[in-house]
């Protein structure tokens, strides 16, 4: 507390209280155009990478990335472990509120969807930068629009793709073997899920809204239940929300009494679903990370009889990204890190089930043969989804739908 200079304190306070913090200042700190120069500038920098840390495999992978970066690029990477990405968003806001425009504490954030939309809206991100990354071309964005679209919003180069997620259902094949020893098949559609829940009361649930995974379930159900999906890909204000979502509420009203705890309580998060599966409280669950069930089997969390699948009509999928806050003091280092994350070596290592199992964003089919071989998926793991299954990907609706659905859900089901 003793180091501040009084004059400075006064100015700072005036700025904060009068709101004189300058409105937008994107490019703080010069970043050279030429990639070679960026690499040189990055050397010796320490990059603070804020990333959700609820998973030991993800953390392990990030630790591996840090080692590689130190060895090959001379950049020190520090994993700032978050329990929730919005903590990092809060921090950037606080820094901007305090007029800290060039010495922020975050250099790279792992994010997508709502968090990205919010940071873009409030000019909290540096960019555009994605196109300047040499490895970005390997994603072939022209042919894979999801690499430059985040929940329908064009990324405009303000974030760079890192991995892919898709709703994947999983169940214990032993559990579903009924008394008569005949295998009951898991539901293959949203409609079938309701019948299945009626037949197996208390054995399925989804995370409590506004949890990310839970909200995704709402969108999944909405997409399956509406006749016309077009309005979902435009801002929610442009359609009659009540009318469009009416089938969803009818569906949930019917579903809830048959859910775990009779729908009076919901699990906290996607990982909580997995934990309840492991404890035997649920027989069917879903995740955003297709490799999660297989990884959980390896970690003794789920039984070896766990199997994964996607719904017949496909499930929601999206890409997760990394972005650089506007006031990062180590932008060159962050750029080199973002580029390394897109390199075939890093992407292949990430996809390895023994490491993390997160799917690559590279367009593998267009890589050269030797590189492509790095991405061969182990087909022997029964808990792992076959790669073909993930081709049935439904795109995410406009982010405004998520917010609207969350609010409607809460006013409908909280504190009845």
């Amino acid at each position, binding site marked *: *507390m003793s*180091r*501040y200079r009084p004059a*400075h304190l006064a100015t*700072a306070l005036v700025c*904060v209280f009068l*709101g004189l913090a300058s409105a937008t200042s994107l490019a703080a700190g010069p970043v050279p155009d030429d990639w070679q120069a960026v690499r040189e500038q990055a050397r010796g920098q320490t990059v603070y990478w804020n990333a*959700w*840390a*609820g*998973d*030991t495999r993800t953390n392990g992978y990030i630790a591996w990335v840090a080692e590689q970066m130190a060895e090959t690029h001379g950049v020190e990477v*520090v994993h*700032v*472990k978050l*329990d*929730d990405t*919005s903590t*990092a*968003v*809060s*921090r950037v*806001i*606080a*820094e901007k*509120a*305090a*007029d*800290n425009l060039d010495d922020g*504490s975050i250099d790279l954030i792992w994010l997508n969807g709502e968090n990205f*939309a*919010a940071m873009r809206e*409030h000019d909290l991100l540096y960019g555009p930068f994605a196109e300047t990354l040499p490895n970005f071309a390997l994603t072939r964005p022209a042919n894979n629009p999801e690499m430059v679209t985040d929940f329908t919003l064009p990324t405009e180069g303000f974030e760079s793709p890192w991995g892919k997620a898709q709703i994947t259902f999983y169940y214990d094949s032993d559990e579903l073997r009924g008394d008569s020893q005949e295998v009951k098949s898991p539901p293959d559609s949203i409609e079938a899920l309701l019948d299945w829940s009626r037949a197996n*009361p*208390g054995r399925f649930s989804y995370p409590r809204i*506004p949890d990310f995974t839970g909200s995704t379930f709402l969108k999944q159900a909405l997409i399956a239940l509406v006749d016309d999906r077009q309005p979902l890909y435009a801002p929610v204000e442009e359609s009659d929300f009540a009318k469009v979502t009416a089938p969803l509420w009818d569906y949930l009203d019917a579903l809830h009494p048959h859910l775990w*705890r*009779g729908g*009076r*309580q*919901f699990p*906290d*998060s996607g*990982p909580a*679903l997995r934990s*309840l599966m*492991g*404890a035997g*409280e649920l027989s069917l669950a879903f995740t955003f990370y297709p490799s999660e069930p297989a990884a959980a089997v390896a*970690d*003794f*969390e*789920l*039984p*070896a009889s766990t199997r994964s699948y996607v719904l017949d009509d496909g499930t929601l999928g999206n890409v997760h990204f990394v972005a650089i806050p506007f006031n990062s003091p180590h932008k060159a280092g962050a750029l080199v890190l973002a580029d390394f994350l897109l390199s075939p070596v890093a992407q292949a290592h990430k996809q390895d089930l023994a490491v993390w199992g997160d799917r690559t964003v590279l367009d593998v089919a267009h890589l050269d043969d030797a590189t492509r071989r790095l991405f061969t998926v182990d087909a022997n793991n029964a808990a792992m989804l076959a790669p073909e299954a993930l081709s049935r990907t439904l795109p995410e609706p406009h982010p405004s739908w998520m*917010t609207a659905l969350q609010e409607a859900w*809460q006013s*409908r089901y*909280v*504190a009845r």
Partner: protein
Amino acid sequence: MWLRLTPFVIVAVLVGPILAGVAMVLLPAFGYLPTLGGETFSLAPWRELLAQPGLARSVGISLASGLLTTAVSLVVVLLFLAAAADTRLDHWLRRAVSPLLALPHAAAAFGLAFLIAPSGLLARLFSPWMTGWERPPDLLIVQDSWGLSLMAGLIIKELPFLLLMSLAALPQLDAPRRVALARSLGYRPTIAWLKGVAPALYPLIRLPIYAVIAFATSVVDVAMILGPTLPPTLAVSILEWFHDPDLGKRFLASAGAVLQLGVTLAALLIWWWLECLARRLGRRWVVNGQRRGGERWLRLTGRSFLITTTLTAGLGLGGLALYSVAGFWRFPEALPTTLTLGHWQSALPALSSPVTTSLIIAASATLLAMLLTLAALENEQRHGRRAGKNGAATAPNRRVTAMTLLYLPLIVPQIAFLFGLVVLLESLEIRARLALVIFAHLLFVLPYVFLSMAESYRRFDPRWTRLALTLGHSPNGAFWRVRLPMLLAPLLTAAAVGMAVSIGQYLPTQLLGAGRISTVTTEAVSLASGGNRRVTGVWALVQATLPLLGFIIAMGLPRLLWSNRRGMQGAQ
């Protein structure tokens, strides 16, 4: 001379940041936060807040959990003390309770959750042979909508705290003599204690009780693990709003934080009002002449409740330990099918850095808190205190006000000022992360250290110091050579409490450290968000072990040092 400044330093250290933090939350609560486009003052955040579904219930649960947990804990503590005798069980209970104080709230809550969940340890122990459950029953136990499991989790932690505070205050009341007197008038011992000692004890533990109320109304981590979810308690809702990717929710969250402050104050007011009521009713009860009614019942309640609490905490810890080495563990097997050290092995390489950081922060914050507390108490002894007849102390009002401010960090909910504090420190360009985290911890460590040290310090027989002075030692000499060594045991206990408080801090570490300071608690909480019970078990145990080691040292060191000094063995 500098000694006289300590009270002012303490007040500046504690009150300044909190008031500043609250101010920085009040502005956005009324719509003002230019960075997010709030250029003018408005009541919009409050309108949005009041429109939140289930707000009334959130507030209700926060209030109820604050008041009920405190009431239950207090009643149990009083009943236990009333019925306590010199039996081995009671001695064991008193001893078993202090390590419970060291148990971080989050670890205790996880332990309880793993114990009482439908797929938890208890259900497994009795299934299927007794219950017939082949699958976990679909029962709403953990996170029940009435907040009962939340209250149970809080009681596990608050009961030991109030008990220790009472035990510390009791010796100045000369309870055995009061009880003996009442017994000679025909009162049964338990009733004698309740009528003769309890009314005098209460004022001495009032501040700790207020701290418990404030904590229980605004707790975040325990409520996240055990509290209701539809809606969650107010404090958890606020955190969710602060964390909402929709940045507009920050206004709502700020208004919520102000409301939380109001709820906590309301709980304190209600308690104060109940206090008045109880005093009026109690006065009649004390003198109604009833001497033995219900004694056995009272006696049993206190003790059995305390035993249950201790055992629950112990079993919970056992559950954590079991999960930390569990392979796959299908319900209803009471023990894991396979055991593995894998979870520990994968955690070990990651342990050393957060453990070191935790220890550095805890040691620094505790050391600072001890220095400030000792200076304040010593100053009070030398200047601020009047010795009445027989050395009994009468407190001048000045001390009472200054020391009430000390409890501000315990009474103002963390969420209500930490976010504002971050903005403020940012604007001052103070970015010494580690120092800031230590400072933030000091805010919470200081009151607890003061709370656990003040009684023994004030109760310390002033004749010892006078004797040292008449033997030619200066006041400083008397302090170093008499007071400090004779008070070593309570000082070490206070230090252990301080370490435990620091190690358990989550929000201040996360917010002021910009997430870059990684302690066992931040690691434990961020890993817990992954929902892996085994990993959670490992980290909750690590989190629980560190403060426990502190307590073991605090208890063992005086015994070791004074092994040939019988007068230093017992409680001072």
